[in-house]
């Protein structure tokens, strides 16, 4: 799949942003006043900024409100509802904490639940697609949710939780990769089933429909970037999980905490690049690719 920068930025930033909001909703840390303002500002910049970035890849962003209509069937529509609900509820919590030194625990819990729901809905947009076997697994929501929880804990200044959740999400990440590497082969979809010609013999793509590329090939038969997959995976693991843990283990300073967050974001972005670049869409089989 084509790794569109807007979608990578959206899933990376909004994931960690909603993760942070979820922790703030739980009252971890129990901030009020000026420090609450700082925490909520960062969380909203990440979460809402990610949502805005996601509209950059739309052909008609001016019709984006229509995306709220089909929540009965569409995970993308459910994500729209969940994200707006989460941002609204957490805005009330944030206003209470910042301006009135008041925390409303029940509302915070609802807000946290909505944040988790948002990340889950985001992950289900990918996990629902049988056409991309690498994504089509319950492990995808587990990966997105564990990453949001770990990154959120890191940003929320919860080292005890972060030191558990970061290694945990690292393990989920590795399992997701290992399963993903044989997902297409295990899916049962191949050139034989795509063309229905497998009964006659071995099928090979002889001629593509046109001499030039097309939307399908640019969007779904993207293969650049897989060459360095192993290096990028190593980088993602080191930056995203190992280095932040090490930085949390040494005595606290704001510089090291910022470094840990930056390193984590870089690692998650690398992992998210691979999430798209390595994902094989079955339509590639019609072009003899994958």
């Amino acid at each position: 799949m084509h790794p569109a920068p807007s979608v990578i930025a959206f899933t990376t930033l909004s994931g960690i942003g909603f993760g942070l909001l979820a922790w703030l909703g739980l009252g971890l840390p129990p901030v009020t006043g000026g420090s609450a303002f700082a925490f909520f500002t960062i969380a909203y910049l990440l979460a809402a900024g990610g949502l805005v970035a996601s509209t950059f890849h739309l052909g008609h962003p001016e019709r984006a409100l229509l995306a709220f209509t089909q929540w009965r069937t569409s995970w993308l529509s459910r994500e729209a509802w969940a994200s707006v609900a989460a941002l609204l509820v957490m805005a009330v919590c944030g206003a209470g904490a910042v301006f009135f030194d008041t925390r409303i625990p029940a509302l915070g819990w609802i807000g946290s639940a909505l944040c988790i729901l948002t990340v889950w809905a985001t992950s289900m947009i990918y996990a629902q697609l049988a056409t991309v076997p690498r994504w089509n697994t319950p492990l995808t929501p587990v990966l997105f949710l564990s990453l949001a929880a770990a990154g959120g804990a890191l940003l929320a200044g919860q080292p005890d939780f972060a030191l558990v959740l970061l290694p945990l999400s690292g393990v989920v990440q590795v399992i997701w990769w290992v399963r993903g590497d044989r997902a297409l082969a295990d899916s049962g979809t191949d050139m034989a089933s795509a063309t229905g010609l497998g009964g006659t013999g071995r099928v090979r793509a002889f001629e593509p429909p046109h001499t030039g590329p097309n939307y399908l090939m640019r969007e779904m038969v993207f293969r650049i970037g897989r060459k360095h997959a192993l290096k990028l995976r190593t980088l993602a693991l080191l930056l995203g999980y190992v280095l932040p843990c090490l930085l949390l283990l040494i005595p606290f300073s704001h510089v090291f905490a910022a470094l840990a967050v930056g390193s984590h974001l870089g690692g998650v972005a690398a992992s998210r690049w691979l999430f798209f670049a390595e994902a094989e869409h079955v339509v590639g089989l019609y072009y003899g690719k994958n």
Partner: protein
Amino acid sequence: MTSLPASAERKLGLVIDLDTCVGCHACVVACKGWNTEAYGAPLSDQDPYGADPSGTFLNRVHSYEVQPEDGAAQLVHFPKSCLHCEDAPCVTVCPTGASYKRAEDGIVLVDESACIGCGLCAWACPYGAREMDAAEGVMKKCTLCVDRIYNDNLPEQDRVPACVRTCPAGARHFGDLGDPESDVSRLVAARGGMDLMPEQGTRPVNQYLPPRPRDQLDQMEESAPRLDPVIEEPGGFLGWLDRALEKL
């Protein structure tokens, strides 16, 4: 509404005969010609006369080589367009309701005025039947020429999809695949019509007829021993010339 109809009254669709298709791409041209000036946004081209041409097509013809265990390889031309699936995954993922499947005839369509161009339906389609138009920013797909098949202004023989009307080999057939007595249904039954990627669970309406078994040309016995060369040495005038030239 992006919920799929419980069942379509009719299942209009295509039957494509892989045995007969000669790979001329006439259906591709006819499709683009009709649909670029009919329903919805035109099918735009980018850099059409330049070094890197590309464009939107609702129908594309692939060609595959099939190599049996024994015998010669076969070339199969393979037209591919929307299969108007009964369990169309492209419809249910649509967040805006732009994609829908009609209950009355099963045709899957896009309301382009409601399409935000997110591209998720193209991701959900295993067949590559949907293409985002680069100029218009909306999703384009085969409409089964919905503006031809019910069009009273056209002569009756033209009330079929443009690809079917134009196919010079008679490899494309249009009809109601929900009616077991229709011509297309009987054709599918007689020729062993098949679903593409049945394991994806999309239940496509369009059916493909597999190529018939080929003659085993490369396994033919020679009917008579090959003839020996009639003459080893040229004689007569040519023989004299040959010898004379040899001596020079």
